[in-house]
């Protein structure tokens, strides 16, 4: 069975981009990808857009993106799974290539979160869980993860200091990533002294909404080798799974079952285990989410995620470096784009192009992209030859 390889990546600057429209952001990342891979538009024969449309004034984003980037008459469509849209779109592109219908597909992640007014965003944010039975009580996105955090703290003794340690690490690396929204390091005290959001979370436990775009270009094996030479990174393991959207029917409150299952599929397909992963990007929308990810992905035992960060095992030089690009926490979270951003980072790591954030000898990497309050998860395993 032929492999699918990533031949080009492009990443834009994340942040409050009131200087650009969504198609202009997409173009930044797309141009960067073409330059990165030494490609031209004519090398591409299909597109998948990753974005969460309801945050934009523009209806039906795909049309406007393809037009602005000059990609007509290529086929293009949107793939959306809340914050997991990016990886969902990459999975779609992988399937499009393996089906034989396409050979070189550009996945364009683009998202503006700041076009809406604050009240409009607040109203949308209140409708993330099950709207019929939960949102009527004013649940919020941080509120859901906060409830998971509290359960984890109750069952395993995870502490607020351990949660804050995740934010400290990610801001440390974000300061070293020119594309990140937040470029300053923080301390545990600063995190613990920040205003409350949804107990036990404070401001520094929560990622920030951001605008931003990222692009990856995938190709079937033969085209990939021709276009990418020895810089190709192979997308060899893909897992995808869901769990309930609502906490009312969630089987467990101390793990994301969607992540456990998606990881299992991806590891099996790639023929690797958690111990083989040299570098990973996980979905740290909230600090607890990274701790759950360590456990769900098998980087540590169930319940030991707090200890994992406390022992600096997820720093460079630790057992499994995680989010050394700053994660969602420091990069910001343009929700449709994030999964694509993760792939960009892992590809750079596996090529040895990550500069001062390079993980030594990284040849197998993983991205873990979650949507909503845990209901969607996509895990990808990447290999360098």
């Amino acid at each position, binding site marked *: 069975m032929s492999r699918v390889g990533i031949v080009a990546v492009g990443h834009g600057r994340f942040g409050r981009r009131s200087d650009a429209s969504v198609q202009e952001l997409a173009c930044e990342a797309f141009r960067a990808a073409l330059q990165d891979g030494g490609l031209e538009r004519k090398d591409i024969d299909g597109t998948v857009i990753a974005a969460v449309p309801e945050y934009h004034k523009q209806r039906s984003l795909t049309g406007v993106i393809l037009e602005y980037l000059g990609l007509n008459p290529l086929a293009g469509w949107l793939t959306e799974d809340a914050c997991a849209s990016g990886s969902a779109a990459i999975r779609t592109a992988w399937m499009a290539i393996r089906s034989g219908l396409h050979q070189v597909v550009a996945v364009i992640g683009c998202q503006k979160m700041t076009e809406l007014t604050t*009240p*409009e965003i*607040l*109203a949308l*944010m*209140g*409708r993330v869980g099950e*709207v*019929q*039975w*939960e*949102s*009527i*009580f*004013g*649940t*919020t996105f*941080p*509120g859901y993860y*906060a*409830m*998971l955090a*509290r*359960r984890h703290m*109750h069952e395993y003794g995870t502490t607020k200091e351990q949660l804050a340690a995740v934010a400290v690490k990610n801001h440390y690396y974000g300061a070293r990533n020119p594309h990140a929204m937040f470029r300053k390091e923080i301390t545990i005290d600063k995190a613990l002294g920040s*205003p*409350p*959001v*949804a*107990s*036990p*979370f404070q401001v520094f436990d929560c990622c920030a909404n951001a605008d931003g775009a990222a692009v990856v270009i995938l190709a079937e094996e033969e085209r990939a080798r021709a276009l990418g030479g020895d810089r190709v990174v192979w997308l060899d393991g893909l897992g995808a799974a869901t769990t309930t959207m609502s*906490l*009312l*029917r969630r089987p467990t*409150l101390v793990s994301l079952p969607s992540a456990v299952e998606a990881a299992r599929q991806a590891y099996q397909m790639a023929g690797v285990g958690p111990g083989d992963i040299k570098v990973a990007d996980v979905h740290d929308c909230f600090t607890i989410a990274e701790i759950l990810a360590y456990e769900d992905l098998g980087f540590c035992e169930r319940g030991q995620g707090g200890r994992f960060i406390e022992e600096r095992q997820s720093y460079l030089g630790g057992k499994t470096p995680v989010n050394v690009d700053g994660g969602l926490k420091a990069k910001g979270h343009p929700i449709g784009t994030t999964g694509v951003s993760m792939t960009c980072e892992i590809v750079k790591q596996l090529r040895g192009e990550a500069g001062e954030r390079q993980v030594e000898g990284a040849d197998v990497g993983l991205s873990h992209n979650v949507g909503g309050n845990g209901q969607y998860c996509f895990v990808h395993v990447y290999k360098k030859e």
Partner: protein
Amino acid sequence: MFSWFGKVNFTPHTKVDEFAEHLRQGRLMGSRCTKCGQQSFPPRADCPACLHDEFEWVEWDGKGKLLTYTRIDAAPTGFQDMGPYVIGLVELEQGGRLVAWFGESIPEDKIAMDMPVQVVPRVFEEIEEIKVYYTLEQPGTSWHRAPRG
């Protein structure tokens, strides 16, 4: 009618509409599939076990256990006038779970994980529209149900 349920309601249409009327009368109601007998809370028009589409209403006694909770300081639109409020996720003894606010009988400093609670149907009294909800109270808290018939 379902639009009575909750402070801000986002579901104008549902087959389990009557839930809100039962709540107004002081009853917490779940559903039972008329084909396989599976009971559900929250009530479902479509059986989760066999997908049959007919159900009957069954009263839940509202006894439950607190699984987890959070105090919301940054509230979404429509809830900002409430000030910080605490939401609990409760596992019901009769089955199913729900999300609700804590009532006056459980102040924030008395909340404890896994504590037993009683879910009590409530009516928003001081607004003009009919709006219903439920709160989490100490076990043994009593309330009135409207006379039947």
